[in-house]
């Protein structure tokens, strides 16, 4: 195997950076969901990479759990966005004012 663990971890760091950039800059609710997806995928890549290099089956098992939980999270998140869009006719999170404390 010619690829080393460090390569995969560095790709994962790059994806994490891009995701955090998206979360902090974008105000569009759907784009923020994209950023969350990118961060979750960076985490999954880390888990599978470490599981391969240990080697241990726990990494892949945890990655499968994480993928399933992310699917649930996206379903709920998208339906929340749809409800908020119906209330405010917008997907800009700065407009979702009634969520403010």
């Amino acid at each position, binding site marked *: *195997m010619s*690829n*080393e*663990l*460090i*390569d*995969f*971890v*560095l*790709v994962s*760091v790059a*994806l*994490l*950076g*891009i995701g*955090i*950039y*998206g979360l*902090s*800059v*974008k*105000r*569009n609710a*759907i*784009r923020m969901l*994209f*950023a969350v*997806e*990118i961060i979750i995928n960076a985490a*999954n*890549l880390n888990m*599978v*990479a470490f*599981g*391969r*290099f240990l*080697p*241990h*089956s*726990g990494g*892949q*098992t945890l*990655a*499968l*759990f994480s*993928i399933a939980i*992310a*699917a*649930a999270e*996206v*379903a*709920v998140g*998208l*339906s*929340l966005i*749809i409800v908020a*869009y119906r209330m405010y*006719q*917008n997907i800009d999170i*700065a407009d979702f004012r009634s969520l403010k404390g």
Partner: protein
Amino acid sequence: MADAVFLALSVITIGSAIAALELRSLIYGSIALMGTLGGIAGFFLLLDSPFVAMFQIAVYVGSIAVLILFTVMLVKRELIFKKIEDKRRKFAGIGLMLVLMVGLGSVILDSGIKSITTDEPAVDFRDIGADFLTYYWPALILMALILAGSVTGALVLARREDVGNEQRAN
């Protein structure tokens, strides 16, 4: 050292992650997100875990990306193309991203991860199945309940209360 397939996959993955956040149209953005998720599935194949790669393609590229695409289509047209962000915040975000990447990257490069290599055979997917059914079975059942609950919750949330049943029938 990384090989050519790895380099191509990382360019595709990181490039389409940037495109997903920066493309003007949300529809093209979600298609670029599909590219990122598919690239991650390619990484899983490189890591000798074909089972997780197939799961990734089935769940992420197959269902989540399509779900996002349909949600984008429910949104008004001018909102799909409108970019909402201010310039100062954007520069601050790019600075934060670079600081994070350089900081975390240098910490990782200095750590002992660099010397880890393996010649051992990859984990067999039968072991994963055995894990699921022995040690992790409570977590598996809990995960199934969470999935069912969240999908039901999503349906209840997205239901329109101002539309009556007779209108729904048409």
